[in-house]
């Protein structure tokens, strides 16, 4: 009996929610009326990291803070700001980490050099094979 009451209580009990008290911000789940601006906002939102679900973009995340970040991006783009200004504003506050687009800073150099190095490496292997076949 006690187990039954307990399990019913458990099933009915609402889980402690970490969701905020307010409905989503105006532009969080709403597209901008101008398709060109919306496209710009979308492209930027795909490249910004969610601060809560780190690993998701703010375009993919349902976290309240990601919704507020989408609101911020759309609001600023609607006000005529360009996406790189918004990205720079966020990087100033959170570091390069907030943007998924690799930076051109020296720390990302191995990343940019990797394709070239691999191409040279592959080229060397192919050249070696061709030489061996001919001889």
């Amino acid at each position, binding site marked *: 009996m006690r187990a039954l009451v307990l399990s019913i209580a458990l099933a009915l009990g609402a889980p402690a*929610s970490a969701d905020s*008290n307010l409905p989503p911000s105006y532009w969080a789940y709403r597209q901008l009326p101008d398709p060109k601006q919306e496209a710009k906002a979308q492209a930027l939102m795909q490249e910004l990291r969610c601060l809560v679900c*780190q690993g998701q973009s703010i375009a993919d995340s349902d976290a*309240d*803070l990601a919704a*507020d970040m989408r*609101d911020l991006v759309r609001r600023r783009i609607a006000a005529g700001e360009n996406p790189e200004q918004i990205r720079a504003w966020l990087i*100033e*506050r959170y570091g390069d980490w907030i943007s998924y687009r690799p930076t051109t800073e020296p720390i990302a150099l191995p990343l940019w050099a990797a394709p070239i190095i691999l191409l040279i490496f592959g080229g060397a292997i192919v050249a070696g094979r061709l030489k061996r076949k001919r001889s």
Partner: protein
Amino acid sequence: MSRALRLLPIILIIWILIAFAWRLVQPSDSVVRSHLVNREVPPFTLPSAVAGVPGLDSASLATGEPRLVNFFASWCVPCVAEAPILERLKKQGVKIDGIAVRDTPGGITAFLDRNGNPYERIGADRSSRVQLSLGSSGVPETFVVDGKGVIRFQFVGPIGSSDVPEVMKQLEEAK
């Protein structure tokens, strides 16, 4: 092909496995730190969040003595745990301002009635804009702002009783 070259893929795989094992044992730090520490608080003006407690703006943070700016919310469970510690800090003479993130006046009133009000002023940040402009990423979070309005320290997460000496030290250093 030389022998060393043939071993290269195996060495590479072992190296990758070691990297995986290392990260499993030592998970990376997922705390987001504001890059605005040691910079001036960005300009903002927030309306009052509850009747009877004034709102908060960035210009009024430069009062000549260091103070705490605490991001909190009535829907945030760790904030309940932090409330008595803030109360204790207030009793020790620490000046604390609050920024209520995504909250309603009713929610905040109930929260303050239950947990006490350590705040001199509380600004309502209804769409996290001030939170984002300070480089904060959640609630609760606490910034130490010095007398000139410069951010000197950021504390991420609830301040526990064991963190009080650290916070006091940071306030002392911000003088």
